[in-house]
């Protein structure tokens, strides 16, 4: 049976933030778009297990996150990554997304442990509550909170932010922020 129009609509409207989540996780647009595609295919194949009235976006984020983590584990096994070289590929791949203004921020984000990175993005940018983020990551709410806190602390160290006026050496990032940040 074709998708219900309302289901299709909900899926499509989740795509922009799914992509942003996938890019933040993988650091690479092509890989991120493949992840989103795989997520949508899985979702459509398993649409019967989606409960109407529940949060479509949270359901899709959960699928994408699980796909990313299984891919990440596989990749780590393949390259015998000693906790770092895979992260390096995240920061050095040429096909990065984003304008130059976000370069420093993106690199700092890529240096976070993946569980902290995903928690921070879910709560700090995707608009999920701590409870929803805990559901997506299948962990306790307290775990999400502590991951978000650790992520924030680490990011501020990496970006050398000591106060609101001190935003490291990256003038262009500062310019973006003072121009309003959220557009």
């Amino acid at each position, binding site marked *: 049976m074709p998708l219900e129009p309302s289901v299709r609509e909900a899926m499509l409207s989740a795509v922009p933030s799914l992509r942003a989540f996938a890019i933040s996780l993988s650091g690479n647009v092509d890989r991120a778009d493949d992840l989103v595609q795989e997520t949508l295919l899985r979702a459509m194949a398993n649409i019967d297990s989606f409960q109407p009235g529940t949060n479509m976006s949270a359901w899709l984020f959960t699928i994408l996150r699980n796909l990313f983590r299984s891919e990440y584990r596989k990749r780590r096994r393949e390259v015998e990554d000693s906790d770092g070289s895979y992260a390096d590929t995240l920061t050095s791949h040429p096909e990065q997304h984003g304008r130059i203004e976000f370069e420093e921020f993106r690199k700092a984000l890529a240096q976070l442990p993946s569980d902290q990175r995903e928690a921070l993005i879910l709560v*700090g*940018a995707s608009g999920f509550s701590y409870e929803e983020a805990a559901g997506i990551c299948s962990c306790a709410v307290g775990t999400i909170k502590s991951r978000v806190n650790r992520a924030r602390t680490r990011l501020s160290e990496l970006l050398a932010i000591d106060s609101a006026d001190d935003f490291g050496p990256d003038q262009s990032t500062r310019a973006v922020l003072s121009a309003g940040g959220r557009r």
Partner: protein
Amino acid sequence: MMQNDVQTRMKRRGRLGRDVQSKLGKTLQAYFDDVVKEGVPDRFKDLLQQYDERKDKGSS
């Protein structure tokens, strides 16, 4: 990365100040929204369309 510098600062600071948190939050949101504002690429619209068409044919 100047590791010593970072460690010293980490020892010195307990919690992040409100201003730092707000700065970080805004940057993160701006970084995220930079992708969100690109909307839905055609490949995903096509993907859902193709799925529906296949399902239509498949059920007959």
